[in-house]
C-alpha cells in the first residue's frame, strides 16, 4: 500500500492510496484523477498517461524500457523526469510519491 500525490497543471493536488502491484496509471484512473487519459489501457502504446516524477523519486520509480523511451520521444513537453504512469508499479518503496501532470496529454 502506498500513498501517492498527483499535482495537476493548475496546481490542484490529488492524494490517493493504492494497493501494491497496481500501476501509477491505474492509481489515477481508479480514483478519477483528471488529466490521465490512458487511451491504450496500459500497454505502453500511446503516451497519454505522461507524468513528471518529482526528482526525489526518480530513482525509486525505476528504469524506463526502450518502448517507454520511444513513446515518450513522441509526446510533447517531455523532460528528463518524464514517465508513462502505466509503466510505474506501485510498491511500499513508493509510499509518498509525488508526480506532476502536464497541461494536456497528447
Amino acid at each position, binding site marked *: 500500500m502506498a500513498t501517492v500525490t498527483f499535482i495537476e497543471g493548475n496546481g490542484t493536488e490529488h492524494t490517493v492510496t493504492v494497493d501494491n502491484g497496481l500501476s501509477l496509471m491505474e492509481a489515477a484512473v481508479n480514483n478519477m484523477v483528471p488529466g490521465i487519459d490512458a*487511451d491504450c489501457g496500459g*500497454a505502453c502504446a500511446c503516451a497519454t498517461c505522461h507524468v513528471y516524477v518529482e526528482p526525489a523519486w526518480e530513482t525509486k520509480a525505476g528504469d524506463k524500457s526502450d518502448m517507454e523511451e520511444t513513446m515518450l*520521444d*513522441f509526446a*510533447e513537453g517531455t523532460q528528463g523526469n518524464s514517465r508513462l504512469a502505466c509503466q510505474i508499479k506501485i510498491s511500499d518503496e513508493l509510499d509518498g510519491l509525488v508526480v506532476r501532470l502536464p*497541461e*494536456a496529454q*497528447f
Partner: protein
Amino acid sequence: MSFAEDHRETTKFPDPYSLPLEKLDVSDSGLFSAQEHWRYFERLRKEDPVHYCPDSEFGPYWSITKFKDIVAVDSNFKVFSSDKTIVIADPREGEDEFDTPMFIAMDPPRHDVQRKAVTPAVAPANLAKLEGLIRERVCKILDDLPVGEAFDWVDRVSIELTTQMLATLFDFPWEDRRKLTRWSDISTAGPDLVGTEYATMTEEDRRAELEECLAYFLMLWEERRGNGDGTDFISLLATNPDTKEMITNPYEILGNLILLIVGGNDTTRNSISGGLLALNQNPKEFEKLKANPALVPSMVSEIIRWVTPLAHMRRTALEDYEIGGKTIKKGDKVVMWYISGNRDDEEIDRPNEFIIDRDKARHHLSFGFGIHRCMGNRVGEMQLRILWEEILNRFDHVEVVGDAKRLDSNFVMGITEMPVVLHPKKA
C-alpha cells in the same frame, strides 16, 4: 417514417458462417459499403482471430481482428514495418517512378524526425491558441445553413469544416481552400471508389493535378523558408534543420503534405457525418446528450470508435512472428482491422451499442497505437467537440431525412452524401 437507416444494396454477399474459414476474405470493398462486414469480422474474432487469407484481390494477407493483438502488432514497429505502404493494396504499377515518400509509410529513424518536425502544429498548446478561431468558423458554417429545407450535411458541414481546419493548419490561402479537399480526393483516387469521378480518372490526369499541387506548395515553401516562427505545417517543414533539405526531393515534400491533408480530411469528415447518423439511429442517446451537454467529449470519443474512420492499417513482417498460435512469415502482409477490434467484446463492453457516456470512452483503436499513432488525434477531437457544442446551442434536432450514401472502400469508412433538415431550438 425514418430514413436514418443504412442504405443497403440487395445482399450479394454470402453468409460468412456458410463459408469454409479459409475462404473468408474481408478485403472486398463492397462488404463495407453494404455494411455486411460486421458478421464476417464477428466470425473471425470468434473462430480465427489471426486469420490467413491465401487468395484475394490484394494477394495473400493476414487479418488481425482482436483488440489486444492489434495493439501488439501496431506497437511492434521493429517486426511490423510501415515502409512503402500502409494500406492493403500494394502500390500500383508505375507508382514507383512517381514515388511520394511520407512519414506514415516510413520506419525509424526517418519517420521520427519528419513526424517531430510537424508535430508542433497539432500539439495541445497550438490548438488552444486556435480554438477561438475554429469556434468562430463553426458558428458561421452553422449560421449560414438553410433552415426547414433538406440539404447535404456532408458537403455543407463535414467537408466545409474539415477543409477550413486544414486551411488553418497549413495557413493556406483562404479562397483557394477547396483545392486542399480536391487534392486529398485526387491522391486517394482509385478504381475502388466506385461511383465517383475518381474511380475512372486516368493516371496521367491524376499526376497532372498532383504536380499542380506540388507547384502550389513549393511556392508557399519558398515564401516561408525564412519564417522560423511559423507554426503552420509548411513553415515547420521548411525551417526545421532536420527537414528543410527536403527541398532537394520535392516529391517528399509532396508526399508529406498529402499525408497531412489526407490524414486530416476524410477521417474527421466521416466522423462528423457518421456521428450525426449514429445519433439519429439512437434517439435515446440524442436525448441524453441534449439533457447533458457535458457529455460532448465522451460522445466524441464514442463517435470516433463507432465510425472507425480508417478500417485498417497494413504492415509488412520483417521477421517470423508468433501470434494467436499462428506463425506470420517474414515478408507477409499483415492487416490490422481496427474496425473489428473496436467491436471486440473482450475489451469493450457492449461494443455493438452506441453509448455516449461510456466508461473509458477513449479506449478505442481508431487512432492506432505505437509510434504511428495518429498525430492529429487532438485536432480531430477538437473539431467534433466544438461542432457539437455549437449544434446544441442552436438546434433541437438535426434530422437525417434520406439515405446515407456509403463509399465502396475497405479503408476509408466514408459517407459521401446525407440529406438533413434542421430544427432550430424554440426561443
